[in-house]
């Protein structure tokens, strides 16, 4: 579905990214692996797993650059893999992938530590870009994820009875502008051009938003995700 707004192509000279695939559907793993062979210069699949336990074990052994992880799996799903790997292997980065477009899936994966979220209808070229972005430590915000965040952080600050860090609880005006453009389908470099800022600055804003999303205990975020349960049928 969503074309993630991915910033730039990484330089051709850099070594291929070592990618690990976690998905409980063998067919899907085979499909992704096959499609990524077309981009062997940039991405190398170093392993795959079909359940949480073996995923955690192998990832800790292989230490890939990026793990492409399915959100829905038996035994806790992607978020569980992310949580279990985060402690022994904090350098491993995660890109969540799912057929679902539901708000709470997105939020749970991001809050577990994923640096981005794409759906399974993504094109291979976009997937490669998204993997590169995540590997570089930046966040992959699809238009839909940007829309989620705007929605969840909308409606003013949360009630002050909760001990919230206002820094974490609200988006800055600039962050809102960046997210709006992403939601409108702008790629990072188009956002940069529109706002007269550098791509790096766009990435900084997006990463800041990701951090807020991961760390805020804004109660509205959970309540919002729960109320929505699922968002409108996917694109």
């Amino acid at each position, binding site marked *: *579905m*969503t*074309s993630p707004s991915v910033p730039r192509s990484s330089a051709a000279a850099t070594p291929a990214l070592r990618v690990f695939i976690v998905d409980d559907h063998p067919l899907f793993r085979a499909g992704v692996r096959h499609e990524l062979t077309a981009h062997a210069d940039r991405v190398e699949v170093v392993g795959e797993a079909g359940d949480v336990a073996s995923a955690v074990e192998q990832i800790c052994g292989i230490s890939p650059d990026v793990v492409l992880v399915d959100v829905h799996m038996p035994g806790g799903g992607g978020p569980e893999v992310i949580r279990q790997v985060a402690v022994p292997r904090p350098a491993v980065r995660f890109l969540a992938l799912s057929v679902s477009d*539901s708000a709470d899936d997105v939020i749970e994966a991001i809050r577990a530590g994923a640096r981005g979220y794409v759906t399974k209808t993504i094109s291979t070229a976009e997937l490669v870009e998204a993997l590169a972005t995540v590997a570089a430590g930046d966040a992959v915000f699809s*238009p*839909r994820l*940007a*829309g989620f965040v*705007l*929605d969840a952080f*909308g409606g003013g600050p949360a009630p002050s009875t909760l001990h919230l860090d206002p820094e974490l609880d609200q988006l800055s005006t600039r962050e809102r502008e960046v997210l*709006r453009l992403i*939601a*409108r*389908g702008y790629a990072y470099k188009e956002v940069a051009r529109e706002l007269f800022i550098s791509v790096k600055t766009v990435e900084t804003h997006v990463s800041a938003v990701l951090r807020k999303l991961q760390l805020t205990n804004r109660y509205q975020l959970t309540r919002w995700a729960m109320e*929505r*349960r*699922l*968002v*409108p*049928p*996917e*694109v």
Partner: protein
Amino acid sequence: MLAGVAGVLSDSVGVSPTAARAALVALSFFGGSGIVIYVAVWLMVPPAGSDEPVVRGAMGDRRTISLVTAVASALVVALVVASVLKTPALIGDVSPGVVALAGLVVVWRHAGPEDRQAAARLASLLSGAGPAAVPTRRRLLVASVRLVAGVALIAGGTSAVLAPKHLTEADFAAAAGALGVVAGFALVLAPWWLRLGRDLASERRERARAEERAEMAAHLHDSVLQTLALIQRSAADPHQVQRLARAQERQLRSWLFDAIPGQRDGLGPASVSGALLSLQQEVETDHGVRVELVTVGDAPLDEASKALLAAAREAAVNSAKWSGADVVSIYAEAEPTALSVFVRDRGRGFDPAEVAADRKGISESIHARVRRCGGTSSVRSSPGQGTEVALKVERTAPR
């Protein structure tokens, strides 16, 4: 006569059925114990042609047990109240009726159809309504006698408490004590009564769930299976297959995830987000492009937002038809003060200055339409850069 109880009694005791019947009726008049005995025998003695007494089936049913417990506990409370009010008549007259009713309920739940009918007849007798066969006038008489007796009882009970010329402290103490006992019973037994109500509710829920499952099966048959058949038939046409699959996927998703389509935010189908969903579906189905839709917030549909959405549809259709892009993005944001919609593609784009003035598409269907409802619109495009149409309208007082 009713459940063959007199016959059973006469068999085991050795008197004639008529005598047994007469004895039961007599007992019913003196304190009502006849009715209780009748129902008890009914429960304990297996009906003819079966060796399982009604009560055996009832023991295995938690719901019946809790029902009986609830009735019994209510009876105990009633007795306490009666004894405090010093109206022994109440105890004697009412309690056998209540016990018998409880027994009848058990019979009702576990006995065969014949017993059920008999139980219904007996229950209507007990409650004073009389069987349906009783002439209306007689029923009226029974009802009025019951009413007079009830009022007399209440008056008697009240005057019994209030009669003493001088209310002593002891009277107050007794009243307070009685209140305490009643409250205590209520506290202890309330869970039983509540559970009874909950059981009824859960029974209703189960039925609703079963209906839901049936509906789901029907839906899958009508939609998914039909589409699969269509897809198999048009396997040679990948474009058609894609269209069918996409439309079906969307339909299935909206059916699965939006219990009531378009009602996510309690605004009903008449909300901006609901209207955008159908817009998305229609453009995708009619023009074979993918439409990405992101909505933030929601608003009710009014004249202005309808005009805005019509303009957005025109913009999306234009993109689908002319841009050559296979994806059109729609972003809508409803703020308290404004509603904005952006329609964007990454297609071939055009130079807005070169569009002939007589081309109605953009000027009429988009700009003029939005202007009429007090909104603003702009088209940004250049060759090779794709097109973005921005539409915005101020919202009147948010509802």
